[in-house]
C-alpha cells in the first residue's frame, strides 16, 4: 500500500511541474498575442489605403491598362508562400496549414517557406523549397518582405512565374483560425472586399500604368506583411488556447490523483487500525 502511495505522490509532483511549464507558456503566448494583435491593428490603415488605391485605379481604368501584373503568365512555375511556425506546442496550427498545402501544392511548384516546422515537413515529403526567408515569422522584418517582393515581381515580369499564391492562417478570433489560400499575382480586383471607390476623376501622375507599376509591389508588400502578422497572431492564439487546455487538464489530473492518494492513505490507516485492534483483541 505504501509503495502505491509513493508512486501516486511522484505522479502528482511530475504533473505539477508540467503544469507549471504549460502555465508559463500560456502566459508568454498571451503577452505575445497582445503584441501581435496591436501590430495587426496598426498595420490596418496602411494596408487598407494601399488596397483602396489599387482598387480605385483598376476600377476607373477598366480594361485600359496593359500591365504585366494584371495578366496571368502562360508559362512558368506556380509559386507558393507558405507561413508556418518555428516552435511547436501550438495545437493544430501547423497541421491545418499542411493539410491545405497538400491539397494546393503539386510537384514542381516553387515553395517559399516561412517557419522551421514547414521546412521540416517539406523535407520529409521530399519537396523542394526556398528557405531564404524561413525566419520571417520571428524577425517580422519589413525590409526582408521588400526583398522577397522585389525578387518575386522581377521573376513575374520575366514570365518565370505562372501564378503566385500565399497560404496563411486567418485570425478570426481568439479561438478560431482558418488556413486560407489567396492568389497574389495576377492581381484580381474582384477579390477586394469592402473597398469603396470614391472618386473617379483622379489624376494619375505620370500615368495610371506607371502608378500601378509602383503601387502593385507596395500592395504585395503590405498584403504579405499583413498575412504574416495575422498568421503569427493565429499561432500565438493557438498556442495560448492549447496551453490553457493543457493547464486545465493538468489541474484536473492533479485533483484526481489527490483523491486517489487520499483514498490510499485512508485505506492504509484503516488497515493499520484494524490490525492494531485485532492484535489488542487477541491478547
Amino acid at each position, binding site marked *: 500500500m505504501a509503495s502505491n502511495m509513493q508512486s501516486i505522490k511522484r505522479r502528482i509532483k511530475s504533473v505539477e511541474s508540467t503544469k507549471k511549464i504549460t502555465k508559463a507558456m500560456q502566459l508568454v503566448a498571451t503577452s505575445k498575442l497582445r503584441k501581435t494583435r496591436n501590430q495587426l491593428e496598426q498595420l490596418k*490603415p*496602411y494596408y487598407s489605403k494601399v488596397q483602396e488605391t489599387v482598387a480605385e485605379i483598376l476600377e476607373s481604368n477598366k480594361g485600359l491598362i496593359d500591365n504585366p501584373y494584371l495578366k496571368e503568365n502562360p508559362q512558368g512555375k506556380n509559386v507558393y508562400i507558405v507561413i508556418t511556425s518555428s516552435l511547436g506546442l501550438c495545437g493544430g496550427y501547423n497541421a491545418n496549414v499542411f493539410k491545405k498545402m497538400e491539397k494546393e501544392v503539386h510537384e514542381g511548384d516553387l515553395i517559399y517557406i516561412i517557419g522551421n516546422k514547414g521546412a521540416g515537413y517539406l523535407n520529409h515529403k521530399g519537396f523542394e523549397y526556398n528557405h531564404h526567408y524561413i525566419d520571417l515569422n520571428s524577425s517580422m522584418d519589413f525590409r526582408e518582405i521588400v526583398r522577397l517582393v522585389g525578387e518575386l515581381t522581377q521573376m513575374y515580369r520575366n514570365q518565370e512565374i505562372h501564378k503566385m499564391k500565399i497560404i496563411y492562417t486567418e485570425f478570426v478570433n481568439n479561438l478560431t483560425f482558418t488556413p486560407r489560400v489567396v492568389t497574389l499575382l495576377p492581381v484580381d480586383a474582384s477579390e477586394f472586399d469592402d473597398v469603396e471607390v470614391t472618386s473617379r476623376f483622379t489624376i494619375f501622375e505620370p500615368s495610371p500604368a506607371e502608378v500601378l507599376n509602383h503601387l502593385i509591389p*507596395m500592395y504585395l508588400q503590405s498584403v504579405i506583411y499583413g498575412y504574416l502578422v495575422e498568421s503569427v497572431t493565429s499561432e500565438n492564439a493557438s498556442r495560448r488556447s492549447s496551453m490553457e487546455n493543457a493547464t486545465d487538464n493538468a489541474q484536473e489530473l492533479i485533483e484526481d490523483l489527490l483523491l486517489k492518494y487520499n483514498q490510499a492513505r485512508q485505506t492504509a490507516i484503516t488497515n493499520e487500525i484494524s490490525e492494531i485492534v485485532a492484535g489488542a483483541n487477541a491478547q
Partner: protein
Amino acid sequence: MKTFKLRIVTPRGIYKETEVEMLNLRTTSGQIGILANHLPLASAIDISEMNYISKGERYKFALSGGFVYVNDDETTIIANAIESPEEIDLRRAEEAKRRAESKLQDENADILRAEIALRKAILRIRVKNEQS
C-alpha cells in the same frame, strides 16, 4: 491660409496625422506642391526630401519612396520608411553609404539595389545636415 488634413501611414502604423497649409514632395515625374482643395491625384513618390508647412513652420522629412494620394478631404502619404531629421541616425546612414559605394564597385553585386540604398543614405545624410 486654408489648411488640409495630411496623413502619413507606414507599415508600423500611422506616423503622423496633422493639418497642413502646404505639402512639397517629389513624384517620379517631378517636384510638386499641394495646397488645400487640390484635385484628386495619385502618384508615386521618389526617394526624396518631403516637407510641409503647418502653422507657418516648415517640417522636413526623409522619405524612402512611397505613394501619395490626394483626395477631396484629405491627403495620404503611404511610405515604407519616413524619418524626421531628429530620427535619422547619421552614423548608420554613413555606414550604409559606404556599404553601397563599395557594392557599386563590385561587378557581381546587384547594382540597382545598391544604387537605391546609396540614394537613401545620401538623402538621410543631407536632410540631417541641413537641419543643424
